[in-house]
């Protein structure tokens, strides 16, 4: 079946730089915790100084360059009549063959460092796991264009591509959409800034950075306070006599810090998603975005198996949503891959949410009548929290009686916070179903709503704990290609009815293959 005119091709020599930079980026990202640990070690250790740090960094960079050069030397790809084949690997050679008809999406990306050398990164996504995905880290524009045209003609159902305008990868960044493209959503810089401010990721990053950064902040703060005291602006004795003022000052400092972090996050979102456009071209959606790393993502409408909309805690204050179109495969693998695989539409304000959703789901989105989960979900967690708190307080009185009063107070506060949190989570859980679709809503202060066709489910599970069995309850788990959706603590008979209906829908669906 192989085409004799399509021999194995090597990546252009300029791709070594691309491999090097992306490899180093990935290495740092995957070992972030180790780097922070090593950084803290360098900072604390007296025997290790800047010289050792620079030497270690130079050695790591050199090894990285060597790895990139070997990887480039061994990387080969070829496009056959019905498949794409890739050979790669450092020590162990791996050969990957993907049939063109299995490729569901072709992604282009042009990071800043690839622009001067005129290369693009091409990702061919398949319904399988990350290991079965073809990634060409840097090929010329002409090659990319030819590859894309071949794949489009190989994957397109007959006649469907007649109306589609092929997008020239050379001009995908910031180009005007073709005549057959319809822009369905555009996010302005202010939309993206608000999206970045409301993103949860910034808080995760803060938690990760927290330990090493807090030491630095503490030393800087001590230094500043000492300077202010020495200059006479700050009178520490006055502050010691006014604990409320200190509390207000600390609160203001925390608020200012949070605002600063949110601002940085907002700016990063503008850089990452700058000029975001959601386009509909024939049978597929496209998203184009990115100021430094110009990207284009494609999603075939028939490959969307569920749509998710989310609003974070801060997002509620700013009325800011985001939507995700989930497609088959990938989501069960690593976090980085999962993030990359999601078809994300950021920066949606409440006024345009229904338009974006109607576009993605090819139909109208009406607010369903939500069914909540049983109140025993809440009472069970409340009971357990109170019992655990009481036991902890009793243990503190027995083990450390001199510290027991403040420990007990802390437990009371923790129990109160958990009790409120459980109530909020219980109130948010909900599900709604019509003849064909299910929607699940969950969250605590923020919320996520997932909608999917029943026939897309891959597996149905009903789980019961002894407590649930006593009260005739069960938790329903519906497995979708991107992961599980759970509806906890509903009546067992209801769970069984939904499970039966979902199985019926899957098993009578004509679309058995994903």
């Amino acid at each position, binding site marked *: 079946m192989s085409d004799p005119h399509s021999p194995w091709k090597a990546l252009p020599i300029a791709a070594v730089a691309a491999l090097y930079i992306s490899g180093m980026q990935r290495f740092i990202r995957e070992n972030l915790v180790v780097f922070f640990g090593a950084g803290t070690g360098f900072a604390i250790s007296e025997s290790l100084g800047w010289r050792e740090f620079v030497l270690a960094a130079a050695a790591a960079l050199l090894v990285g360059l060597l790895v990139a050069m070997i990887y480039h030397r061994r990387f080969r790809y070829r496009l056959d009549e019905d498949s794409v084949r890739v050979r790669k690997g450092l020590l162990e050679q791996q050969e990957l063959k993907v049939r063109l*008809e299995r490729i569901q999406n072709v992604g282009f990306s042009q990071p800043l460092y690839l622009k001067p050398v005129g290369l693009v990164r091409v990702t061919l996504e398949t*319904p*399988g*796991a990350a290991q079965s995905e073809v990634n060409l880290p840097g090929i010329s524009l002409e090659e990319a264009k030819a590859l894309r045209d071949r794949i489009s003609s190989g994957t397109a159902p007959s006649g469907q591509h007649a109306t589609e305008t092929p997008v020239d990868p050379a001009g995908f960044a910031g180009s005007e959409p073709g005549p057959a493209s319809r822009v369905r959503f555009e996010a302005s810089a202010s939309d993206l800034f608000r999206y970045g401010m409301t993103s949860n990721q910034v808080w995760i990053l803060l938690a990760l950075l927290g330990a090493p950064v807090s030491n630095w902040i503490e030393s800087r703060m001590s230094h500043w306070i000492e300077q202010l005291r020495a200059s006479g602006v700050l009178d520490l004795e006055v502050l010691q006599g006014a604990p409320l003022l200190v509390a207000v000052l600390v609160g203001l400092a925390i608020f200012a810090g949070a605002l600063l972090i949110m601002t940085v996050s907002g700016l990063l979102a503008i850089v990452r998603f700058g000029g975001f456009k959601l386009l509909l071209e024939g049978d597929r959606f496209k998203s184009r975005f990115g100021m430094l790393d110009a990207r284009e993502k494609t999603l075939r*409408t*028939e490959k*969307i198996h569920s*749509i998710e909309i989310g609003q974070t805690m801060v997002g509620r204050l700013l009325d800011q949503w985001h939507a995700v179109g989930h497609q*088959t*495969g*990938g*989501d*069960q*693998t690593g976090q980085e891959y999962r993030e990359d695989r999601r078809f994300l539409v950021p920066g949606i304000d409440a006024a345009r949410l229904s338009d974006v959703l109607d576009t*993605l*789901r*090819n*139909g109208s989105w009406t607010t369903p009548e939500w069914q909540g989960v049983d109140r025993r979900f809440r009472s069970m967690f409340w009971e357990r929290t109170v019992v655990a708190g009481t036991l902890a307080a009793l243990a503190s009185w027995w083990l450390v009686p001199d510290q027991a009063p403040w420990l007990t107070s802390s437990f009371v506060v923790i129990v109160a916070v958990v009790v409120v949190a459980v109530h909020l989570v219980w109130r948010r859980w909900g599900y709604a179903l019509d*003849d*064909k679709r299910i929607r699940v809503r969950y969250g605590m202060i923020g919320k996520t709503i997932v909608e999917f*066709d029943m*026939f897309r*489910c*891959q*597996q*149905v*599970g*009903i*789980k*019961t*704990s*002894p407590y649930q*069995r006593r009260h005739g309850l069960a938790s329903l788990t519906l*497995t979708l*290609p*991107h992961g599980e959706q759970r509806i906890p603590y509903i009546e067992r008979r209801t769970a*069984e*009815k939904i*499970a*039966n*209906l979902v*199985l*019926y*829908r*899957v*098993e*009578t*669906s*004509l*679309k*058995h*293959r*994903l």
Partner: protein
Amino acid sequence: MDPNDETGFTNQVIDPHAIPDHAEVPFNPMASKFRRYVLQSTALQFLPLLGGAAVLWLLPVVQDGPALIAGGAGLLGLASLIAVYRWLDAGYRGWVLREHDLIARAGVIWRGITALPIARIQHVETTHGPLERFHGLARLKLYTAGGMTADLVLIGLPRTTADELREYLVEQIRKRDSEAAQSGHE
């Protein structure tokens, strides 16, 4: 979300009582030797730890004999509890193959019933370790799209049953794929 995906089923009124109830099917028990197998495999898992404790106790350099005995007894207790749990679980486990899906149940304290439609199975395999081979047992692993690990594993099947199930399911997948290819739904 193509509305044409389910042509023929879109507007039908579904009588909820007419839909087959997966919870009311008679489950097949696992192989009769499965309970013996779980006891022996639990013992084998704990044997190195217990052996290590015994060797340490016999060595003249170890001074704290009673603590070691207590640790060994604790390990033995834990192993017994796990063995009892697995023995009960082996008795509760069951499976049933219906025309369109395969249903399995498991668990003693937290019980679960899982139904996997045959339409969603991408790949099937049977595996057996040395102890399973000794008892004539095998496990059937069923994979769906997108996942890296098996989505449903039936452990403790008689080996012949596992092989027959595998062959049957592979045949169903083959039929489904060829039908899909013919009808243009590939």
